[in-house]
């Protein structure tokens, strides 16, 4: 009958009106400045530098100033200067570190390419969106100190991803240690053998595992920890 559709429509809007007072599914608006929206885990914008230790962020940056991200960055918003000296990293190994690491957020387009190319899991995407500043230039150019955020923060914003990264890093570190031990054992054995004049060369395995991923030519995925040996 004519008009029944109109009544159905009125019922729909009336239900939504009444439901907005008691049903959260019908009242989805979040009143922003007072209530922050719960961001989905996959949300990302602007990179930050991961440091292992919150108390000493500059000393424990994962970044080794390899400058891959600087070269890959499409809008070229990253600027890196290598250090002249070496400092021990979180594992205690001496590494080059970025003396200057700056990202111009007025240029950055949050494409995540720097994250994808980083072999050290040193740069990750942040979730900040309140980025308004009162000055046009200085405040938008973030330096090393502003970019460094601890690994615990990374766990807070991207838990799944951070757990994967941590597991991979731990496995790589363990593998590297075992290899080092094996190499040391082999070396010792070789030394012993050399001493015994029975010439048997030390295994070349660590070198080959280092080279093979680079030969594939695809986008560099986060590399195992043993890669560090190649750079340092």
């Amino acid at each position: 009958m004519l008009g029944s559709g109109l009544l159905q429509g009125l019922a729909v809007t009336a239900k939504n009106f009444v439901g907005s007072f008691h049903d959260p599914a019908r009242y989805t608006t979040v009143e922003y400045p007072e209530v922050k929206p719960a961001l989905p885990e996959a949300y990302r914008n602007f990179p930050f530098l991961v440091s292992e230790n919150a108390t000493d962020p500059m000393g424990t940056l994962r970044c080794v100033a390899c400058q891959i991200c600087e070269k890959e960055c499409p809008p070229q918003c990253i600027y890196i200067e290598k250090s002249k000296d070496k400092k021990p990293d979180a594992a205690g190994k001496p590494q080059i570190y970025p003396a200057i690491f700056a990202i111009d957020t007025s240029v950055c387009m949050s494409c995540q390419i720097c994250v994808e190319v980083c072999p050290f899991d040193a740069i990750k995407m942040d979730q900040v969106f309140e980025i308004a500043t009162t000055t046009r230039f200085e405040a938008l150019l973030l330096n090393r100190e502003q970019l460094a955020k601890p690994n615990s923060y990374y766990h807070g914003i991207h838990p799944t991803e951070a757990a994967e990264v941590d597991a991979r890093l731990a496995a790589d570190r363990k593998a590297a240690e075992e290899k080092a031990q094996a190499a040391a054992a082999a070396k010792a054995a070789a030394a012993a053998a050399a001493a015994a004049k029975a010439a048997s060369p030390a295994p070349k395995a660590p070198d080959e595992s280092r080279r093979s991923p680079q030969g594939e030519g695809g986008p560099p995925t986060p590399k195992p920890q043993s890669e560090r040996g190649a750079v340092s």
Partner: protein
Amino acid sequence: MNAALLFATTGSVLETLPVTLRDLVTGWLPEPLRWLVNSLVGVGTLLAVIGLLFAYLTLAERKILGRIQNRPGPNRTPIPFINLRFFGLAQPFADGVKAITKEDVVPDGADKVLHFLAPVALLAFSIMTLGVIPYGRHLVLLEFDAAVLYFFAAGAATELAVFMAGWASRNKYSLLAAMRALAQLISYELPLLLSVVPAVMLAGSLALPAIVEAQGGWSYGFLPQWHVFTPWGFAGFIIFFISALAESNRSPFDLPEAESELIAGHLTEYSGFKYALFFMAEYFGMCALSGMGVTLFLGGWQAPLPFLEFIPSYVWFGVKLLSLLLVFIWIRATFPRLRMDQLTRFAWKFLVPLALINLGTAAFWSLTAGWSGPLQFVRWAVALALVLVPFTLLGRRLSAGVAPRTYRYAT
């Protein structure tokens, strides 16, 4: 009439409270001046109340639309200086300040006088219609015999102001939009008037208080005898309401302005406070037509049940008026806008014939007022048939070949 006499006739302090207050104020004046000041106080009160109603109706509309669309609506405007938000209750005043401080642009080639007069005339005619409505048992500002005629004459004069606005803008789009608006307003003037005639016929008077009195009393001691509870009255009320939607340019008949499609139609060349005046007039017209609908069909200021009569009549009128205004807003939130051809077709092929048939139904109803016993059932059956059969047949003809719509390329 003075307050003491009124008190004697109705016996309720609250009922006569507005009149008592007015007499307290004007009682000090010499007798010859009293009628003039009495009228001025009445006009001032009406304007203040309706003005406030307009202000908060805009807020209520935005909030209700928001709730229906899963958002809170305006709720942040603080009260000045104390910075207290209070659900955004200061929002209408912030809107008013904004409208006043905006630049008022008048096109170079516009007819300056008419361009200025159009919103003023529209508002003036809208306010004139508000004067005759009986807001309570003793609250009739303008009491005269041809009140219904006066109401619709003043209401029709707003159409002149609409065309004035379109023509004075010297903008062909404004002019075309004004003509379209006129076509709509004139189309719906007819069903509006035809739906009112039965109420006048039954009461035998064009005076609104008499029409309200005619709906007084209780059948079986508790059922109100409002016109809307009779077959012809229900049909008449629906026709009246649809026509009122169109007459006050409200959704789904808001195509003269069509804010999302045209650039406000005949209001294209208006800005600042003049633009706000047009909206004020729209809301005043909406209030006036709702008040008229309440008076003619919903029993005016009468209480819905006998034991509720202790609540003053003006409260009942206010409750009914607000409920009708809420339905206006509810409808705006629900229905999409009609097309021009659908609009006129709906008026001429559906509403006008139905309203004409409704005249006959009402005549039958008034002629059979004496029927009692089993004849009562015959009376109801015949009257219902007179309403439902034309509705079904005309509705079928209206939607023949149009509905249900089939989509060729979509599933």
